[in-house]
């Protein structure tokens, strides 16, 4: 086990356009490749790939626009999906597997199965959702790298006023 206090953080950030299905998955793909180049444990890369993709698709499907950001360090990967969109009226409902507000045409494309947020939760160690109806949603997911001691400053992933997702 190695402890690296004050270790560097690599930040990658991409603008995501709502409803642009042609480009969807590009940002998460780029970040995934970087995670592989950094050489993080491949199980971490695998989990991050799922979280990144679901987070990116959430913006593409539901929001007007948003930003997908990854903060990569030897200890953890923090994934932030921050969007301007309709917001989530009932977070606990949105966290239920199979619940979806995606319209029919999106489901027709094989998306919107109501697995997005539950999948993000399933593949991350910590997750929080901050949302305001009519304004937007910010999802923060953290994936810890096993075998590496956490940073001296523990990650504060729940911004003040955020709704902590039900961990059920």
């Amino acid at each position, binding site marked *: 086990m190695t402890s690296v206090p004050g270790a560097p953080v690599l930040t990658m950030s991409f603008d995501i356009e709502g409803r642009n299905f042609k480009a969807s998955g590009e940002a998460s793909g780029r970040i995934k490749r970087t995670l592989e180049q950094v050489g993080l444990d491949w199980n971490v890369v695998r989990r991050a*790939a799922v979280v990144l993709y*679901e987070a990116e698709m959430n913006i593409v499907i539901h929001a007007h626009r948003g930003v997908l950001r990854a903060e990569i360090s030897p200890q953890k990967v923090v994934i932030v999906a921050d969007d301007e969109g309709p917001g989530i009226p009932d977070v606990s409902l949105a966290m239920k597997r199979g619940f979806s507000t995606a319209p029919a045409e999106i489901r027709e494309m094989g998306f919107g199965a109501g697995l997005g947020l539950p999948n993000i939760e399933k593949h991350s160690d910590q997750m929080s959702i901050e949302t305001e109806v009519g304004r937007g949603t910010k999802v923060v997911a953290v994936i810890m790298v096993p075998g590496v001691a956490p940073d001296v400053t523990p990650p504060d992933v729940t911004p003040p006023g955020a709704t902590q997702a039900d961990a059920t």
Partner: protein
Amino acid sequence: MGQYFHSVTLDRDKCRGCTNCIKRCPTEAIRVREGKARIFEERCIDCGECIRACPNHAKSALTDRLERLSEFEYTVALPAPSFYGQFRRTSTPETVLRALLGVGFDDIFEVPVAASAVGYAVRTFMSQASRTRPLISSACPAVLRLIQVRFPALLDHIIPLESPMEVSAQLARKRAEAATGIPHERIGVFFITPCAAKVTAVKQPVGRAKSAVDGAISMSEVYGAAVSHLKDAENGRRLQVALAAGLGWGRAGGENAEINQGELLAVDGIHNVITVLTEVEKGRLTDVDFLEAQACVGGCIGGPLVPENPFVARANIKAMADMVDSGNPRPPFGEDELAALYDAGLFTMVETIPPRPVLKLDEDVTRAMAKVERLEETLARLPNLDCGSCGSPTCRSLAEDIVRGLAFETDCLFKLRERVRDLAAEMKELAEKVPPSMDQPSGSERTPEVG
């Protein structure tokens, strides 16, 4: 030979250092250096894309030659399903196999027989194991190596069953031993291969310590030797026993047609395989039970060592399969025999397939992170035209090579030109500066007043 054996090899004399192969390689394993292609052996998956792409035929596959048959007392040919597709309707599956005997083999064991048995094993495994879905076929060795190199997170999706080639080799040797009494080590079992990847799978297998196959001979070479024997008269027992579905494995979709159970998806062509595996890696396609994935477009009939045009071969296989079907064949193995072989472990892949991750920029994560930052900065300065003139396939891969210490920014012709232009501008500026002793006063600013 280094850490990895590769069938795909380069003839340096024929290589002109063009960019065709580097642009097509799915793992970015080739660079042009000193006017010649160079293969990074840890990245190469022997898919054979470069063999197809090279206009100068500088890339080829190392295979075993027919002369190797003389090393053994008794030899058995293992024709791949794609072999049947090399012959037009004037031939029958029986005459094709008889022609193989004419080439010099003592016996034939049809790989399609083993393919159908593997189909049984896949169905059994699928209904017994509740493993991560989709399960990915283990039949194509180039796809297995692609997963090792580019999708290590998907290794546990690979169905832990042996390929039809390995299964047929074991069955063939056992049968030959029983029939002749010759000890197994003096029996030579040779696969008639459509591709380089199978040669590598014989020389350096994954999933098992040693291949049961003694050698892999190029389908083109065997075809050349076999055509003159197509008219050989029938004598003795019937050679052709495989079912039509087994022959179908030679083309894309044939494996799934044989399995015919659960949700199935098939993809062919290595670049297409990458797109589908990317979907799997994102966590999609979990509703698919089994993924047939083949590196060559069209399946094995599209292999780089196959003589016939793949589209013609596809029609040929269909015709051959119809001929087999019209003879109302009996299955070579009954269900109970297959069940016994399954329980005896004939199909089981004994070793787990290890990852071969090649993307990581440094062994140390923190140093790798610094290199990623340098990579992105470098990339931002490159023209992003992906012309390949530097010898790396894309600007991004050049940036990677630079941070790995394998290339320089001035390897980019555009960056070099920029440097030359800047240098020229600087030289011009310098040239205009003349020593004060020669300077013609144009104003008063250069000549200090002597007071």
